[in-house]
């Protein structure tokens, strides 16, 4: 059964990879939305001044 160690190795590594990929996607979405909110708030401020 020693030859089956690669399956265990890949299973554990894929779990970490999947979780990391999801966390990165959350980070990317968070940054993009934050940036867009800041841009729209700035537009709103300009609109209110006018």
């Amino acid at each position, binding site marked *: 059964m020693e030859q089956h160690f690669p399956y*265990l190795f890949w299973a554990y590594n894929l779990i970490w990879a999947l979780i990391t990929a999801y966390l990165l996607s*959350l980070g990317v979405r968070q940054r993009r939305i934050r940036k867009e909110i800041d841009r729209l708030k700035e537009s709103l401020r300009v609109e209110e001044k006018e």
Partner: protein
Amino acid sequence: MSPRRPGGRWASLAQTTLPVITLALATTTLYGALFYAPREKVMGDVQRIFYFHAPAGLVCFLAFFVTFVASIGYLATRRPGWDIAGRASTEAGLLLTTIVLVTGPLWARPVWGTYWTWEARLTTTLVLWLIYMGYLLVRRYTEDPDQQARFAAVVGIIGFIDVPIVYMSVHWWRGHHPQVLAVSGGGGLDPTMRQVFLMGIFTYLALYASLMALRIPLGRAEAELRWLRLKLGERPARRAASGLRASG
């Protein structure tokens, strides 16, 4: 009035502490799975996949139950907070189901001699994954946030029917999949294996809580973004504005 500000004191505390707890639990489970739990006599080391595979399957049921409750909550109250919670829980549940679907075949290949077989537990789990992908994709059919949330809530309620089917599939159809939790009377898990298995469940519960703590503020930020776009007239879906303002 703009919608509620994303985050807050409790949210930021949860976002800081929960990932640390999750990482500590994951490290302990990893140690337990690799060094503390005994080597299984028949399957050998590949059985150690079980400590991260089976707990993910159990906690994904919890995630989809939360989606089910949130879906009912949204349809009953039309409060966007329910939809945000349901969506966050669905994404976490999908991540856990993906872990189950990826690690399962890696265990099956050396034990069954094949990565995949259309066995009841495997098939119903794949159907579960597809249903909740549908929960997320159905939102693309409309621009109206209320309609998006309603469509998804219907999928979240009907889709939950598959959860007990997945759980009971090993009893109803008696396929190849092991019935780990059903075994009793001394024939079940070795006590050390059970300890590591329980640690695995706690790890995934902490991971689920961490993901919710990270995803819910993002959902609120998305709602804020929609509200700002409506206010500035960047999007035509005026009807949704009342619903979003109600979330404030």
